[in-house]
């Protein structure tokens, strides 16, 4: 009789023990899943937060790339080829190394193949200095301008110092502005760059992407980092075009792809001022020379208009 009671007591105690052990075992297992989750979640939580903020991001590559630190001595490559230009009236600013030119007779573009037409024009003869070294950038172009960026053997330059911008008036090209980066030298061996996805996430974490906006495009290209010792240093930079969904305003954000830092105070087309060594007086003087140059060019245009118009052959 006693033995049976003891058996019962043991049974109850062991069932209780089993429940306790089973419970603690299960709890352990679930904890692991939870902690693992936290490790992997960082990237996906950012994505979720971005979705909550109504930010549209297309599919972005998570693949790391490669790039170089490049330097270019500040020289005047365009300035030494000016006499090759024909059938144009031009003004060249030696401080900003910018060439502005107007065509005597407007170039007509057919709407459908405007890009192909211009690309062909660039490559023919002496129309544009180093014309074959530029490629069309749809992202930077707008309804009244077509932007070509300079391409090098290391990749394209997305910077105001290596651009060719055609001004459009309906289907006519009236004028262009051109800048060109001279010989590039590699300063250091190839380095790994961050992925497009990393760049966009970094911009978001740093509150650079406002709510209710859309990432229009992302492109890796070389931009000026600093100008030092008479040379400009270029680094691979992620250019991210952010568009506000309501106002449709676009702004270009730049992320240094080598050390993943945001390059601030730069918007489309105005990034040539160096930020480290040039003094304030320097930048002032270069600005004034731009205005004087534009006055120059307009007077030049008036005086030589007839002459040039007579010699300009018709395109198309």
């Amino acid at each position, binding site marked *: 009789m006693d033995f*049976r009671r003891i*058996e019962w007591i043991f*049974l109850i105690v062991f069932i209780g023990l089993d429940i306790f052990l089973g419970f603690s*075992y299960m709890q*352990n297992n679930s904890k692991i899943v939870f902690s693992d989750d*936290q*490790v992997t979640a960082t990237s996906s939580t950012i994505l979720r937060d971005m979705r909550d903020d109504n930010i549209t991001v297309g599919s972005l590559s998570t693949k790391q790339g490669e790039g170089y630190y490049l330097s270019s001595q500040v020289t005047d490559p365009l300035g030494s080829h000016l006499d090759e230009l024909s059938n144009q009236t031009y003004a060249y600013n030696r401080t900003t190394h910018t060439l502005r030119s107007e065509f005597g007779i407007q170039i007509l573009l057919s709407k459908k193949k405007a890009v192909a037409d211009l690309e062909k024009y660039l490559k023919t003869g002496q129309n544009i200095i180093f014309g074959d070294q530029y490629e069309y950038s749809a992202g930077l172009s707008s309804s009244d301008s077509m932007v070509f960026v300079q391409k090098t053997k290391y990749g394209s330059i997305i910077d105001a110092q290596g651009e060719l911008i055609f001004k459009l008036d309906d289907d006519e090209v009236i004028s262009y502005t051109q800048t060109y980066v001279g010989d590039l030298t590699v*300063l250091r*061996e190839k380095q790994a760059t961050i992925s497009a996805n990393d760049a966009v996430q970094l911009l978001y974490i740093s509150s650079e992407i406002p709510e209710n906006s859309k990432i229009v495009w992302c492109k890796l290209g070389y931009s000026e980092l600093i100008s030092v010792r008479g040379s400009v240093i270029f680094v691979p930079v992620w250019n991210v075009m952010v568009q506000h969904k309501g106002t449709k305003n676009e702004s270009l954000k730049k992320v240094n792809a080598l050390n993943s830092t945001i390059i601030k105070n730069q918007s489309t087309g105005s990034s040539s001022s160096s930020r480290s060594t040039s003094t304030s007086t320097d930048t002032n003087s270069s600005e004034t020379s731009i205005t004087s140059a534009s006055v120059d060019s307009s007077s030049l245009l008036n005086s030589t208009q007839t002459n040039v118009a007579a010699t300009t052959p018709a395109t198309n």
Partner: protein
Amino acid sequence: MRRNNLFVRLLLIIAVVISLVLSFLIWTNNQRYERKTDTETTTKREETTSEQGNFEQVYLPTQIINVTKNKQHHLIYDHQVSLATELRDTMKEWHFGLARNSHQNYADLINSPQTLQLGYHDFISLKLFGKVESQSVLQKATRDRKFTRIIFSTDAKLKTVYFINDTTKQIWQSKVSNAKSSQIAKLIKAADFSTTIRQKYLNGKLRTFYDESVSLTPYSYLINRRNENTYISALLSDSSNSAVDTRESGGKTIYYGGSYRNRQLTVDHRRDQLKFVDNTTTDLPESLKALLEKGFTAINDVDNPLTDVRYFGSDENDHTVSYRSYVEGFPIFQQSDFGAFEVNFNHTGSTINFSSRTLQVPVPSKSDKVVLPATLDMINQLINVGYTEKQIKDFAIGYRWVPDTDETDIVDLKPTYYVKINNRWRDYQDWLADKTE
């Protein structure tokens, strides 16, 4: 009645068996408990991929020697791509077998034609190398080995990789599969710098002697002096105790943190040198692998950029490991008194010496190429002014850190020989000019 009795007994037996099984499961899986308590650290380490990337970079070989068909040794380098990184990525694709003792003759092996040699400045652990190359067989080996050099063939019969301890002349070999020598040959061919060398012993260590004068390019860098606040937040602050005490003495500031002020950060403003002492880590690393791993964790915590930092040397008796910044294959000296980092472990705590000056952006150099004399000429010059061969403990071609006189943010890196005499690394020109130390 009897059946009921049997049923209770059966239930009891089952309950006992279940409790035993559950106890066994919980006891044997004790790492699950550890993981549970580690949730804080695992979440902190969300950048594990970049940490692994840094680890693989810090423990890359620093010297690549190509032995030609006619047994000439050439130190090679590629200014466009990092050869060491490319080789590491290529070798990651290989499948290494277990490393066994090799019966190869040491002298024959290091002079065997058509081979590539990857060298470290000091001993490295084979298991750690397995981690760098993501080779599970090497990592899981029961016995670890210490080596300084890796040798493999560059012709079609690339089937074996040798690991060599140049001090004891011990050799281990590991069979590799999936290795393609054509990829290696392509990398060697692309290298744009090559100089003839000879490998000779100097005070028990195999060193690279340059046969002819070497012409090297100086480099310039924009440097960054990191703010000490970044180090205070990286090293001193923790969730439990955020108070940091400060004390000034001379040109130094000492910050105290941790629960019993058991972590101190000393900042030497004049020389941009910092010292971090952590009295809570009193475990000594028991092996070279543990020393190198703990050393890496320590420097990674400092949070300086590690892109250019490479392993330079270690002392197992002293539990010290040192790291230097490397530029284009050569170490930088005089960035501080100790290189980029020096980590020491002892029973009272760990000490990290580091510099807040870090290389940031390469800039064009002002000076032309520098021609260095052949190594024997350099040593003879030292002997001529009165040093003995025995005094010269070590030497290496390295870059001298010379701050620009006009722009304080720019540093010029001038190539020169560095010589270790009386446990001090100095430019050989300085040793020649000044014999007092």
